[in-house]
């Protein structure tokens, strides 16, 4: 069998996801109305683009199936958990910023982030977080007139 190119195992799943996604967009485009070439409808560009994406996803699927599988990556340890924690912290920050307020939320968020990458001193992290949250509030709210939520703390 002729090897086309180097592809990874994950490409198989990605191609399937993209096929489903393009199918969904095609369905939506048909609902929107494709129109005619003389008078293109709202779904015209979506239909053409999603169809092409679907065809490319099928090509990726076949390449992932027939192509030369890339050897497993290096054994270097990765820290995917850090990303999960940062994403969770971001979600919490987004939901709590308005009711709790910018300064308190940012303090807690930064304190967590300063500790994630590598363990440092607690006092240092508290000092950095407090200084950054207050100074950034003053800079953006006072100097640049950005209306940041005050929440529980009533500042100025």
């Amino acid at each position, binding site marked *: 069998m*002729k090897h*086309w*190119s180097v592809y*990874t195992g*994950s*490409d198989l799943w*990605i191609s399937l996801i993209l096929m489903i996604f393009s199918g969904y*967009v095609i369905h*939506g485009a048909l609902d*929107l*109305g494709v129109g*005619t*070439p*003389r*008078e*293109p*409808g*709202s*779904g015209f*560009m*979506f239909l053409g*683009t*999603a169809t*092409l*994406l679907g065809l*490319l*996803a099928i*090509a*990726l699927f076949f*390449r992932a199936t027939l192509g030369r599988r890339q050897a497993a990556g290096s054994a270097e*340890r*990765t*820290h*995917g958990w850090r*990303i999960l924690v*940062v*994403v969770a912290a*971001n*979600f919490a*920050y*987004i*939901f709590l*910023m*308005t009711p709790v307020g910018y300064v308190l939320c940012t303090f807690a*968020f*930064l304190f967590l*982030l*300063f500790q*994630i*990458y*590598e363990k*440092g001193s607690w006092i240092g992290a508290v000092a*950095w977080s407090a200084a*950054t949250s207050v100074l*950034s509030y003053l800079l*953006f709210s006072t100097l*640049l007139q*950005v*209306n*940041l939520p005050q929440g529980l703390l009533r500042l100025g």
Partner: protein
Amino acid sequence: MWTDILYGFQVALTPDNLLFCFLGVLLGTLMGVLPGIGPAGAMAILLPISLQITPVGSIIMLAGIYYGSMYGGSTTSILVSIPGEAASVMTCVDGYQMALKGKAGPALGICAIGSFIAGTFSVVGLMLLAVPLAAAALKFGPPEFFSLVLMGLVLATYLSTKSALKALMSALLGMLLSWVGIDLVNGTNRFTFDLLELADGVGIVPLIMGLFGIAEVFSELEKSAVKTVSKVEITNLLPNREEWRQSAGAITRGSLLGFFLGMIPGGGGIIASFMSYIVEKKVSKHPERFGTGEIAGVAGPESANNAAAGSALIPLLSLGIPMNGTVSLLFAALMIHGVRPGPMLFSEHPDVFWGIVASMYVGNVMLLILNLPLIGMWVKVLKVPYRIIFPLIMLFCIIGVYAINLKTIDLGLMLAFGILGYLMRKFGFDPAPLCLAFILGPLLEVAMRQALLLSQGSFAIFFTRPLSAVCLGIALVLMLSNFIPFFSRKREKML
């Protein structure tokens, strides 16, 4: 033209714009020095802040960040063997070896001087070529514009990563995202999921900051450790006579090569520096010395990436078509300020065009001053631990996005694009074509509709007009070549 350039200096030398230019090159150098934050990430993080200032000041600052990061990227390449940004990868090869041999000073010096010469050369080229190109572009109709944009997009994706297939898919995703929102022709909501916030479409700022700012942080967080600065003595930044002799030709060739490659869609600094390194190795009488600390291997690529940074602005400002992902951020910034880049820019906003050109002369001088005497300061910046830097980047992204509309949904979108950008990088999809297509998508749709209206629904209009037919032909050949194993392998080898 001299009147125009004098006018440009009048704009660029006002105290405010001088300050913005200085801030831009300073922040650009800083971001270039810090590993893990490329020019796109840096511009994305600072884009919302630039919205608080005048359009000219904002673009001068963002352009300063763009070409400033090219200067700064070489510092980490030489001292730590980590490229501060992708275009400095080739500088690591011989630059780091020079540092290990105690020649970090001349390596850093030739980078700064070569970058200055190449940067100035590309500004002269920008000044001379942009206006005639814009005049020619005024004759383009919707079919030509559609085909030109499409060709640019296909070329950019073709040259972006090893897998052209994945790059094309990335671009198609960008286009689909760009059309979300109300259809301005008939008022239909398109894929808005009945969310009022999506009626105006997906915001460019959350998308860019997510894909480049947040995703870059996620990618760095996953890694184990960051290398530390090697204990190198930095003395005597000026190269000696022999080093000058070896570098002069490399700087000239690098400047010319970078200038032309920068104008090609998808070209930019990365390909320019790679090609320059290959050329220097080919023309050298001692190619075996490359990789062991050859100064021409530093001077050539560094000049090339700086020349490419300047010349990439030519198609952006004269045709209104950004040719790579980083330049598309400048396009976005101009559009947010209500300034449409393209042939009409010179008549509608001469202050913006000539102001940028003049500020680039000034900025290049500032960069030379920043990079030679202040090199010790940048070395100290390198020692700031990443655990301090990344929370600050996250905070800047959050405030930046929130400041625009004061809506938390924008923060959610930014996070979603951050996750998407991280996954794309992890699985070999380049996010730059997505960003480029997101920006060009609405232009493509409008041009296509106008062309079809002109031709009363006949697609033949795209093939019967010579320029349009040539552009579409090139795009088609490039797309199809990806499915021919011989060409596909050649391309992968080249990249």
